[in-house]
Structures are given as C-alpha cells and as structure tokens.
C-alpha cells in the first residue's frame, strides 16, 4: 500500500479530517514519491520508509493543536518545501565549519555534502554504505517505534539520504571529538540520520554542526540522531545549528542511557530561521546522569524551539537542564521540558532552569517546564525566568566608567556564558563562545 492510498483510505473511512491539507504537505509526499527509488537501503528499509510516509500522511505536519508543537506550529509556518538533495559536489570541511572551529577538528570530521557523506573519517562510517552490508543493529535502530510518534521524526525516516554510523567499542577512549558537518547547496532540503552506539565504559565526544550561512540561499534540514549509551560510558554530545531567515531545521536526538552513564549534551542555536530541537532521554540503568545545557541567540523573526522529554524509568538517576536564550528583534524562543519520574524511579534528582533575556520589546519567550511525578522519594524542581537586562547592573557598570553599550554586551555575554561554561573541552568551548558572540554582535 503506498502512502497516497493510505491517505485516501483514511479519508474514505472518515477517520481523519483534512490531512495533508497544505501545499507543503503535498510537496513532501510528492518529493518522497519522486525520490523513493533512489534512497539508500534494501527492501526492509524501503518498507520502513513507506510505512513512515504513510503514517506522516495520516498525521500531517504538526499544528499548534498537537501539544508538543503548541508554540511551534509547523503546519502554519512551513509554506514551501525545497527539493530533496540526494548527493552533490564535495565541500571542504573548513568551509562547512565556518571560522570558529580550529583546524584540529577537520581531521576527524565527516562532511555531508548535499545529503551524502563525502568520506568516512574518525571512526564514523556512512549509513548509506552500511545499510548495503546490513549489520543488524543499525537497521533495528532505524525501526525503533519510539520514533513513530511524531510527524517530524516520521519525515526523517521516510526521507533520510545518509548519515553517520558510529560504533564505539567497550572501554575505548576516543581522544578527539568526532565531528559531523552538514552542508548543502542553496535551496535544498536534506535529511540525515545518525546512528550511534557507545560501548560500556567508553569515552567519546561527538559534535554535530549544521550551518545555513547568512546571505546564502535557503536550507531545510532534518537531522535525527539515535544513540544508545552502554553502562559506565561518558559521552559529550554537542550540536551547533546556524540558520538564516526562511530556513528550517528539524533536529531530534533519541538517547537511551545504561547504568552509571554520564551523558552531557549541549546545543547552540543561532540565527534567524525556524529551528526545532527535540531531545528525548530515557534512563534505562541506575546511577546515571544527564547534564544538559543550551544556549541560543535568536534574531529577526527567528524561532528556536527546544523540547525535551527526560524519562526517569529507573531509580537513582540525576538530570540537570540549563537553558539560556537571548532574544532580539521579533525573535521567539520556546522551551518545553518535561521530566517524567516513573513509579519505581525513587531517589530521582531532577532540576531544570530555563532563562530568557529579552533585548527587544517585540521578542517572545514561551516556556513550559513540566513535572510528571509518580514516585514519592524524589527531589525535583524547575525554574523559569524572563527578564530584560537588569538596569541596575548596567548602571553599576556605567558608574564604574564602562560605556552603556559595552556594559550591555558584557552582561549579555556573561548571561549566555553561564551556559557555555558547562562545556569542558577547551577548543569546543572557545568555538561555541565565538559562534554565540558573533551572533550577539550581528
């Protein structure tokens, strides 16, 4: 049964009203049909894609009526769909990276040009090539049912053209960060899928970079990373998204943690486009720690959404979230953080903080920190603040002779710096600070 048939059948039974009503939704469907034969993977993967597109067709792009997209209405905001890129000219890593990452990162980088990996590097292989050889765990991961709940994820499953496969063996300590960089020609859509497995006791830092540079053409990108972290492993996971006006990035990380794991994700988002970064973390083993940080600087009519679900399924785990956003012009940021503590997850320690600094009267911040708790012996809390730059602090600085503009810049940088300081790797912290600083002065 093809996807269109699924739609008409649903409609025929009168179960679903007005799905795929928008031009963009129709275009996605057409794009899938035009490209399906070219997409990597054997029959099983093709069937998976077909089913995902069928499910997407019955849901459509999420509108604000879908609670998780309440503040990021994709149905209303995604007007046009760009053609899917299925491979193209190679780009050198330095160009793809931009100015802030030092040359040392390029050595371990896998560059994805127009949706296809140029070459394997730094321990990462390419999904498209791996699928041909069919190692079981990768394909099993692709069909994880947790990814069929939301339309944005179904879209990735249907359309992904490539991605990285990273398999860190038990006990391995990978010294240099593994970097995955996405780049594409103007006016194209890309869909990447990264599948990562970190063995017990291993240590690794993984960085994902997706840049749509200011002044160049539009990009639409979907990037979905699945990761399973083995017992006792330590993972630092960084993401940088730069978008320009009119561009769209739909990112999602689906992470399963074993016991005694330390998982430290950090996400930087800058620019003027529409960005959605989902992150679902499931604690499967005890005594693990999830320590999340995020910094975003949004301009123009930019819209940056970070939506987290942290699921404490087992006892004795700790989760920390620190989200900071600086909003200028008519920019809008969204933070949704749900912490679920299941009935047996005693001794859970969960804390969450979301803070927005508003630089312009027209900026908007929507925050929904949510606690869903079914165990009694827990300590959980969240905080959320919205404010302008504190005029008293500006005055204090100016009274010490600092010009107002410098004082403001100082205060904004220190605000965002509090989050970025969570990144321990010196070179990465410098790079992220540089990206944020550039964006603040843009």
């Amino acid at each position, binding site marked *: 049964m093809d996807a269109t048939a699924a739609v008409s059948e649903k409609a025929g039974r009168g179960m679903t009203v007005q799905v795929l009503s928008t031009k963009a939704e129709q275009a996605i469907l057409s794009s899938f049909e035009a490209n399906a034969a070219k997409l990597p993977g054997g029959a099983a993967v093709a069937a998976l894609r077909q089913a995902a597109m069928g499910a997407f067709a019955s849901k459509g792009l999420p509108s604000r009526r879908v*609670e998780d997209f309440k503040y990021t209405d994709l149905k209303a905001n995604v007007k046009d769909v760009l053609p899917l890129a299925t491979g193209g000219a190679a780009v050198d890593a330095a160009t793809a990276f931009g100015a802030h990452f030092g040359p040392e990162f390029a050595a371990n980088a896998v560059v994805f040009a127009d949706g296809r990996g140029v070459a394997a590097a730094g321990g990462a292989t390419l999904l498209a090539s791996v699928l041909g050889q069919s190692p079981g765990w990768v394909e099993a991961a692709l069909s994880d049912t947790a990814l069929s709940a939301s339309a944005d994820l179904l879209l990735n499953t249907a359309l992904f053209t490539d991605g990285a496969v990273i398999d860190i063996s038990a006990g391995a300590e990978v010294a240099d960060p593994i970097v995955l960089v996405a780049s594409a020609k103007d006016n194209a859509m890309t869909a990447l899928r990264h599948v990562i497995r970190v063995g017990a006791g291993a240590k690794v830092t993984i960085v994902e970079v997706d840049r749509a540079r200011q002044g160049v053409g539009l990009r639409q990108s979907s990037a979905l990373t699945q990761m399973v972290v083995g017992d006792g492993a330590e993972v630092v996971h960084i993401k940088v998204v730069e978008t320009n006006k009119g561009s769209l990035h739909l990112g999602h990380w689906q992470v399963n943690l074993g016991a005694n794991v330390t998982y430290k994700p950090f996400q930087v988002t800058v620019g003027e486009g529409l960005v959605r970064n989902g992150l679902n973390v499931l604690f499967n083993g005890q005594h693990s720690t999830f320590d999340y940080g995020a910094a975003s600087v949004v301009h123009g009519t930019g819209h940056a959404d970070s939506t987290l679900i942290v699921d404490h399924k087992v006892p004795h785990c700790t989760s920390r979230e620190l989200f900071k956003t600086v*909003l200028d012009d008519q920019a809008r940021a969204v933070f949704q953080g749900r912490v679920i503590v299941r*009935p047996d997850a*005693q001794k859970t320690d969960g804390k969450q903080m979301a803070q*927005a600094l*508003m*630089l*312009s*009267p*027209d*900026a*908007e*911040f*929507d*925050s*929904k*920190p*949510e*606690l*869903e*708790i*079914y*165990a*009694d*012996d*827990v*300590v*959980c*809390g*969240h*905080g*959320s*603040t*919205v*404010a*302008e730059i504190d005029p008293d602090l500006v005055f204090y600085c100016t009274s010490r002779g600092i010009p107002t503009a410098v004082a403001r810049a100082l205060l904004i940088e220190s605000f965002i710096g509090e989050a970025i300081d969570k990144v321990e790797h010196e070179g990465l912290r410098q790079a992220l600070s540089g990206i944020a600083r550039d964006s603040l002065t843009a």
Partner: protein
Amino acid sequence: MPAVQETVAQVKTIDVDQYKYGFETDIEMVKAPKGLNEDIVRFISEKKGEPAWMLEWRLDAYRRWRAMTEPTWAKVEYPKIDFEDLYYYAAPRNSEGPKSLADVDPELLKMYERLGVPLQEQEILAGVKSDKPRVAVDAVFDSVSVVTTFKDELAKAGVIFCSISEALREHPELVKKYLGSVVPQSDNYYAALNSAVFSDGSFVYVPEGVRCPMELSTYFRINERETGQFERTLIIAEKGSYVSYLEGCTAPMRDENQLHAAVVELIALDDAEIKYSTVQNWYPGDKNGKGGIYNFVTKRGDCRGRNSKISWTQVETGSAITWKYPSCILRGDNSRGEFYSIAVSNGYQQVDSGTKMIHLGKNTSSRIISKGIAAGFSQNTYRGLVSAHRKATGARNFTACDSLLIGDKCGAHTVPYIEAKNSSAHFEHEATTSKISDDMLFYCQQRGLSEEEAVALVVNGFVRDVLQQLPMEFLAETQKLIGISLEGSVG
C-alpha cells in the same frame, strides 16, 4: 487543644470514609424531568420568573453547548457523563416563597446547623451568641438559594447580597450588564452548560467607595440524587470598593458520581478589590474511588479598572474530580491578580487545578502560590498559564508551585505555561516536588508526636503561606479539614 491534636482527635471520631458531611436530608423536592432540552431550559427560566431576555440568553447558551464537545486535555479520567440522565432542577418545595429565616423549612435549618453553617442571624444580632463570627450567608440547597442572612444590615451599607434569582427580579439592569461579561456563554463546554441551566447562586454588588462591613459567604449543598448542581455567582465591586467572599461546599456520600458545574464571575472596577476564598469539600468518593462529585468549575475575575485587585484563595480537599482554574484578566493598568491554592488529594481523587494570569494592562502584577499534596492513589496536577501580551509593558509575575507526595502510589504533576510576548515582562517561576522527609518525621516523633500528628504538623507548615490568606473565621476549620483529608495516608 492545639490544632494538630484537635485534628487527630476529630479524625478518630469519624467513620472509615472520613467524610463527616455525608448525611442526607429528607426534604420534599420539586424537580424538572430528567434530561436536557430547550423545554427544560424554559422550565427553569419560568420557575424563576425570569425576564424574556434571560430566557433567550439561556437558549443561546444551550444551542452553543449542543455544538461543543467535552474537553479532554486535563489529566483526569472518568467514564463519559450521560447528560441526558441527570436532573437539572431540584428545589425544596417550600423554598419559593419570601426568604427570611422564619420561612425556612426547619429540616433545612437543622441540616445547616449540622454542617456548622451560621444561619442564626437574630441570635447574633441580638448578641446571644457573640462568639460566632459575623458572616452573612447565602445558603444554596441543590438548585436554589434557601435563605440569605444579614441582608438588611448589608443594605444599610448599600451592599446588595442576594441569590442571583432574586437579583434577576430586583436588579435586572445590573445582571444584564455584567452576566457573561467575564465568562461568555460559549467560553467552554461546562460554562455553556451552566449558562443554559444555572438555577441559582449568589449575587453581590458593592457600590462605589464602600468597604463591605462583613464577610460574605455562600454555602453550597448538593443533597438530591442524580442531580447536577449548576450555580452562578456574580460579584461586582464598583470603584474603590472592597469585598471579601467565601464559599463552602459539601454533599452527601453516595455511590453515584454527581456533577457540579459552576461559573463564577468577578468584576473589579477602578481601585476596587475582591477577595474570593473557597473551601471546597464536596464528597470525594469512598476509599475505593466509588462515588464522589465531579467538580467542573469556571471561575474568572476581570480586573477591569485601574489599580484593581482580585485575589483567589482556594482550599480543595473534596470532589472525585476537580477541574478548576480560577483566573484573572488583568485588564486595568496597575491591576493585580493573586492565586493561592492548597489542593489535597487522597484515595482515588483526581485534581487538575491551577490558574491563568492574563496580563493585558500596563504594569500589572500577579502572584501564584500553589501547594499540592498527593496521597493514597490520587493524581494531583497543577496547570497554569501566565501570559503577558504585546502591550502589557511592565508585567510582573511570581509563581511558586510546590508538591508534596505522601506514599508511592500517587502522582504529582506540574504543567505551567509561561508566555512573555514583550521584553519588559518579568516572570519568575519555580516549582519543587518532594516528599516529607523521614528525618523530619523522626525528629517530630522523637519529640513525642505520633506519625500521623507529625504528618499533619509538617503538612500544615507546608501550606502555611496559603492558609494565611484565608479569612480568620475559617482558618481553624480549614486546618482541621486538611488533617482529616490526609487521614489514613501514612503507615
């Protein structure tokens, strides 16, 4: 005797189901036939002798309701309600005459006495029982108001306090001007239903510059079987006036679930202040979750004038299901909204409650203090919205939501929505969830308190910020109520 021990002593005197207001009163009733249609709406309106515009207003609400569906977003679960299997009007046979204490059925007076509601106006006025608080009471029994006390004394100050049915007859211009101006007929499913069939409720009008000389209070009692209670309360505080109002609610213990869908509208004009307190103790169902009231209530205050203030305080201990979000529309510049809440759930109770603070005017401020206590198998959710619109410059909010869990079979959830649509908004939100620490309980026990006494003490400490907002007259009773609600939650 200190409050805690009093609580415990009282707990020991009550039966297993812990609910002391569970008795029925045998009164001859007039009822409309079961089910809901336009004829029932006409019947209710006619019974009340309402003006034609009011009937049209109700019918309009009824037609809108028919086109709506029940909301499902709250974190509560219950079997679908059959709205055709309910009585929408029930009134004591003798209640339709003039209303003074002398005319009230003695059975009813006896019932209110048993409930501890002070209706003995003459005695208090004559100074016979001078220790009783001076509180004017409107007593609502099933669908109608049976008596309102202290009316004459209030009238001297210019304050109108009567049932809304009477207000429709005596002050139609006021009702027409304000009814539905805060909660429109089609606001939500239950508000639409209420607009169509509300049978009674209280009406308060405080004229310009008047500080209402005493606490006003309405006491709601559901008695009749298979009957929905739909009361409507409307309070208007004119410029520079002040009023403090309290409602209390109880119902008999029954195996069936009964529906209560009220609407409360408050309007505060320039410099006016309304303080609205609720002690909600509807029957929560038995220890296995059978029976109890479904409490679907829309409460909203409109700070329409500059410098106006509306303050909601609620103590929610009863009902099988509570669905309730007393809100403030901060329309007037410099207006202020407050929400103080204690929600206690035990047994199989489900609470989904919170507030909305909608900042529209300039320099408006709001404060939310919510304390949720979940025990037994209950689910207790705080759901709230704080929003500052584009032009609401200088909006301020502080929110603190704390949840306490007693036992590992219950759930406590916090779902805040925080929306700042302009840069000068200054919002602070914090929430915590924890349990009563074993160390603290041990410490209290080491000092001689039993485990139950220790829990009651710690819980009363936990909710103190909110209790302080209640009128003095109701404080002690409320403290006891919280202790009783948690009976059986430890050990």
